[in-house]
């Protein structure tokens, strides 16, 4: 059976070049970069080359601005807690309702520890109101933390403008750029962001490695205390093979960035257009222009997302859903709810996310397989009457018996 992977916002295939680059550091070059002898020396050099590659991808001014971490979540945790520990008198954080759990859960934790958190809402396109953001800044505000692009909808936040506002008020600004690295050009030299998180496995490195950019001059407190690794900013022996892999993936991402935006963007548009033309009763979630070129989030009315995913998976197609059942909770995606997507649509949302490994054939195959799956599930659904779609107000069933 053909397999088509359209779940690249969840994780990506590890690039062959990346595997080749990291293998020697599993097999031969297993030294500790902190050692004085040559076993360590070679390895230390590889770690620093990887740092240069990551700095290159992010457009960082100085190599010392890059801290290797174990994942995007660690980068987010580190950035937020560091900002607060460095400013112990300030007890207010501004974030958004649509953040990744790696940020939201930390903010909820901080709330319980006595911090005040402002969760900014988004409009029905998934966009922020920057005036509202600015109005919420007080002399007590320690940090603004917003994502750069949303993992579920691909909607992009204007980090340059948010950063400018933060600067104007002397507030630190952290952004979770996990979905942006490798997809949009990042130029930290000219972007007013103080800290930025990335994750390797979202751009063809393996799982278990990420990085945190900390602008030179921003005061920092480590999250993981230990040895002097990463200039004392992150204890723990470096995961050398993973770090080397991240460096290689960063180098490849830089080389493919045009391709990601043009070719992958065209594939996404073709997929989206094809779905819109062949399936009735759907909506695209998120601003059509201000979003990543690789992502589309589509809600199919009258059917439930997990059922769609299971049947797609039977045909070798991998995607994901913001429905309640597939999220492991009983509520549909917090992102779609924040955008005010009606429940009738939220439960039937599917995210397709592409990468540079996707082809035209992948899109053809998906466009062939998806419509009959939706049609089949709609036939099973009590809310769908093919010939006569029910008027909006009677669509929701109640627990009452049917009056016959």
């Amino acid at each position: 059976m053909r397999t088509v992977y359209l779940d690249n916002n969840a994780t990506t295939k590890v690039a062959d070049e990346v595997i080749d680059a990291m293998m020697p550091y599993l097999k031969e070059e297993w030294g500790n970069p902190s050692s004085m002898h040559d076993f360590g020396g070679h390895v230390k050099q590889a770690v620093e080359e990887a740092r240069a590659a990551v700095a290159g991808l992010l457009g960082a001014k100085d190599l010392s601005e890059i801290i290797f971490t174990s994942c995007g979540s660690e980068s987010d945790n580190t950035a937020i807690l560091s900002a607060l520990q460095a400013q112990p008198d300030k007890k207010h954080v501004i974030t958004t309702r649509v953040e990744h759990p790696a940020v939201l859960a930390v903010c909820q934790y901080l709330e319980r520890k006595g911090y005040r958190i402002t969760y900014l809402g988004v409009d029905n396109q998934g966009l922020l109101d920057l005036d509202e953001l600015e109005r919420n800044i007080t002399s007590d505000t320690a940090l603004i933390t917003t994502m750069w692009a949303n993992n579920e909808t691909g909607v992009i936040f204007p980090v340059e403008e948010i950063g400018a506002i933060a600067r104007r008020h002397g507030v630190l600004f952290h952004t979770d750029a996990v979905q942006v690295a490798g997809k949009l050009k990042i130029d930290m030299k000219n972007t007013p962001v103080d800290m930025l998180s990335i994750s390797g496995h979202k751009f063809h490195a393996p799982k278990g490695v990420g990085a945190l950019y900390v602008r030179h001059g921003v005061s920092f407190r480590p999250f993981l205390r230990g040895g002097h690794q990463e200039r004392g900013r992150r204890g723990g022996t470096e995961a050398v093979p993973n770090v080397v892999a991240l460096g290689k993936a960063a180098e490849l991402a830089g080389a493919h960035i045009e391709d990601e935006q043009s070719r992958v963007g065209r594939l996404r548009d073709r997929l989206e257009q094809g779905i819109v033309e062949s399936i009735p009763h759907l909506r695209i979630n998120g601003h059509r222009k201000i979003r990543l070129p690789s992502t589309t989030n589509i809600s199919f009315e009258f059917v439930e997302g997990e059922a769609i995913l299971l049947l797609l998976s039977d045909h070798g197609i991998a995607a994901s859903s913001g429905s309640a059942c597939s999220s492991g909770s009983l509520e549909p995606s917090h992102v779609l709810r924040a955008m005010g997507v009606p429940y009738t649509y939220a439960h039937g949302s599917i995210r397709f996310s592409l990468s540079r490994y996707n082809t035209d054939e992948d899109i053809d195959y998906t466009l062939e397989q998806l419509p009959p799956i939706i049609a089949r599930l709609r036939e099973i659904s009590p809310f769908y009457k093919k010939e006569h779609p029910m008027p909006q107000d009677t669509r929701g069933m109640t627990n009452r018996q049917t009056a016959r």
Partner: protein
Amino acid sequence: MAWDYTDKVKEYYRHPKNVGEVEAPDAVGEVGSIVCGDALRLTLKVDPETKIITDAKFQTFGCGSAIASSSALTEMILGKSLDDAAQVTNQQIADFLGGLPPEKMHCSVMGMDALEAAIADYRGEEHKHTDEDEGKIVCHCFGITDKYIERAIRDNKLTSVEDVTNYTKAGGGCGSCHDEIESILFRVRSEQAKEAKEHGETPRKKKRMSTLQKIKLIEETIDQEIRPALQQDGGDLDLIDVEGNEVIVAFRGFCSGCVASHLTLEGIQMKLREVVLPDLVVVEDRDEQL
């Protein structure tokens, strides 16, 4: 997340049997709503003489296991008399499918509810369900009443808030009703223990065990049954000491200083009394509190 569905569940959502609507149905049962994320419409044809279900069809909006549970239900009741069909429980639906993941048990409960609604419809009775059963709404996210939760606890011998959520969805939204569910659990379980006693069932014999055995069993129970639930909510629990029948614990993470910790404490005590010794008292270590 990928669910651990049995082959039979997969077979039933891939190729569901009895999809659709019977013509001129004698009974219709509708439960759930598109807002809640799943809904089932069950239509039956019933022989007026024998009261045997001669045809059953379903339409379901929901996940794979909801479709499978609905289809399984129609298979199970076809050819049964209404009285026999009324005996079908949600557990039997789950068993028919070779089991369901715990988080998906509410799919089988939905099947049972729809069947009850259909039978009530046939008999011209009013089907009392969730927000209409005259109980008080506990879970506002899903409109679930205390009576409905109570029944699920009794029928399925549920012991934790997580169980209640898995079977009824109550508490699966904003989570603000967890304390109330905990109180209902505590009340129903206490009542059940009392009823068992009155029915002459011998109460559990007081076990004799050494202090070491007792502490070990308490530790195991905390590790296996209590801690995982707390950790799901970002909390944790340490066993500080056991003095006689007093179990001294300290909450960590989100649990520490949480206003609801006395309710959590009740739940822990209930569990330990059930598994270890019925006279245990769980107290929070005051020195440990911030």
